[in-house]
């Protein structure tokens, strides 16, 4: 903590930290503390180096150079959130984390759109499993006369349905398995040390 002598400087500092707190609210306490401490140390060093006799002016300069919390903390929090969400396997947290990372740099945007697409596939699989329960005669695993096969909605009355009610539990199991596999992959991508090595 910085010990301010000037009351106005203390108020400005507290207001800035409040903005930081709002940005990091979704992170676990240990990560919040880490970011809070690093920003405080940065402000302290910046004020010390530019050594202005007026503490309030020195602080104002330091904060101006550091930037608005929403500008530089957003990407920091977004990346940490993906890892935390992948660790928890919580679909809601994953969805929010992926959304927050789209637009956070070209590489991240491509990466998270790709994962978003994979999760969308899981959603379609689960949705098909649910639809099979309500529309058993239209949804199924069909085999056409020419040998081609597909899962889903069929207009072709000649197509033969092969799995019957078994389709729902099979698709549910497949969807859940895929969900865990994709999330493990996402976790690896966010934390992987070896995967990002250049040759």
């Amino acid at each position, binding site marked *: 903590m910085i010990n301010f002598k000037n009351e106005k400087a203390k108020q400005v500092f507290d207001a800035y930290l409040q903005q930081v707190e709002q940005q990091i609210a979704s992170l676990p306490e240990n990560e919040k503390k880490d970011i809070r401490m690093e920003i*405080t140390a*940065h402000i302290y*060093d910046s004020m010390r180096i530019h050594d202005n006799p007026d503490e309030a002016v020195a602080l104002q300069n330091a904060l101006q150079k550091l*930037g608005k919390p929403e500008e530089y903390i957003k990407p920091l929090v977004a*990346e*940490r959130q993906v890892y935390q969400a992948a660790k928890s396997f919580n679909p809601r947290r994953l969805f929010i984390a992926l959304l927050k990372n789209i637009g956070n740099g070209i590489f991240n945007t491509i990466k998270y759109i790709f994962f978003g697409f994979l999760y969308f596939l899981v959603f379609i699989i689960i949705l098909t499993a649910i639809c099979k329960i309500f529309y058993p005669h239209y949804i199924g695993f069909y085999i056409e006369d020419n040998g081609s096969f597909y899962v889903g909605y069929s207009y072709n009355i000649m197509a033969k349905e092969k799995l019957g009610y078994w389709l729902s539990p099979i698709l549910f199991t497949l969807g859940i398995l895929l969900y865990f596999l994709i999330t493990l992959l996402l976790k690896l991508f*966010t934390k992987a040390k070896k995967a990002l*090595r*250049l040759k």
Partner: protein
Amino acid sequence: MLSKRNRYGYELIVEIKKYTEYDVAEGTIYPLLNRLKTCGMVDSNWEEMESGMPRKYYKITSVGKKNLSEMKKQWLYLISNIQSIK
């Protein structure tokens, strides 16, 4: 810079400003350092200071050193190609 010795965030910014004329918000270095840490290129640890204000020091890892040397090679290769086109 980190291959020479461990440094803290503000120190890195001061060093970068010495060699470049970019005027970007200082805070933007922290998402970059976090990304490097996530990729295992750098590691960090908190150190107590005499001033009473602890500092987070970053150090390059063996993975980071390997990448750095590979990127240097690629950069030199690129420069030599550009020069040969001239």
